[in-house]
């Protein structure tokens, strides 16, 4: 562990901001609202020992231990979304009907290992 760089707070597993703009992907002609939304994503390290803030599973705790003993053989646990929330999109369909559609799991609220 002496060689590993010190883990800083900002490098720990947590949500990072990611704004999706529908006009950037050329969808502004058929999406009425929203024009975009904050989807976020997870990024960061899951170092040993895992602290409670890192929303880790028991398996992740085990894996960090093994990683600390055998860094080449076993990777760190992944940093993934553990709580997501839905969004609603209003759009026109091909028959010019107005459609309101709810999509689950579209916004990353919390990350974990």
């Amino acid at each position, binding site marked *: 562990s002496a060689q590993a760089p010190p883990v800083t707070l900002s490098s720990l597993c947590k949500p990072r901001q990611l704004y999706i703009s529908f006009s950037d992907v050329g969808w502004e002609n058929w999406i009425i609202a929203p024009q975009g939304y904050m989807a976020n994503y997870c990024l960061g390290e899951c170092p040993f020992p895992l602290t409670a803030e890192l929303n880790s599973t028991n398996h992740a705790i085990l894996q960090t231990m093994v990683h600390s003993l055998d860094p080449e053989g076993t990777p760190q646990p992944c940093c993934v979304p553990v709580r997501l929330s839905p969004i609603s999109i*209003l759009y026109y369909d091909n028959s010019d009907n107005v459609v309101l559609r709810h999509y689950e799991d579209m916004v990353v609220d919390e990350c974990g290992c």
Partner: protein
Amino acid sequence: LSLQESLQESLLLKSLGLSTKPSPKTHAPVPSVLWRIFQRRKTLPALSKDLGDACRVEEFNVPGNIIRVFADQGHFIHHGQPPRLLCLQKRLYFNLSVLEEGERLTMAQLEIKFSHNSYPSPSPSQGQGLELRLYRSSRLPLRGTPAPERGQKLLVERSFVQLHKSLVFDLSGVAKDWRTHSRNLGLILEIAWSGGDGASALGSGGCTSISSFLDTSLLVVTLSQQQCGASRRRRR
């Protein structure tokens, strides 16, 4: 878009349950009921959003994650003067073919809108008033037939003394039947003047109050098995 980008776009659209990128020809106004539901959901705090159920429409208390409002594509059956005592006769048609195969219809609600509450109100004591009848078409009318075949199935018959800005009817059963068993041949809407003779129908009150008829629309709620079935499995 490059070939790769268009492939990525089609995959993304598919994950959103859309087979192709919509290309609307007109931009109709957003029905107020949809805008209200959209705004309410948008302003929910994040935590209750997670607890809320994107696969249920709380406003109507039915399962569903897609709400569409279909504009009526029908036509008035009479140009000019409808038959005696009949103020309005209209064929209604809502094209439900846009619903994807994997969508389960859970609710359909017909709304008949008038531009305002019309007055003077007929006198119920004399048994005068407006009657509304809604038929389900089970046969296409022969070209030129002035009136719907009486064999149509009567769905709703009610009288109302005072016109309301909008009338709402639950047509979930009919819409489900259109999707599963029989062809969607539309509906026939009749509004008639009851009580009193033809002259009074055309006099003050009577049919003139129907002039404020605006339009009809069908609000349909469906549940996408792809989006609501899969995520449920994953969570479990």
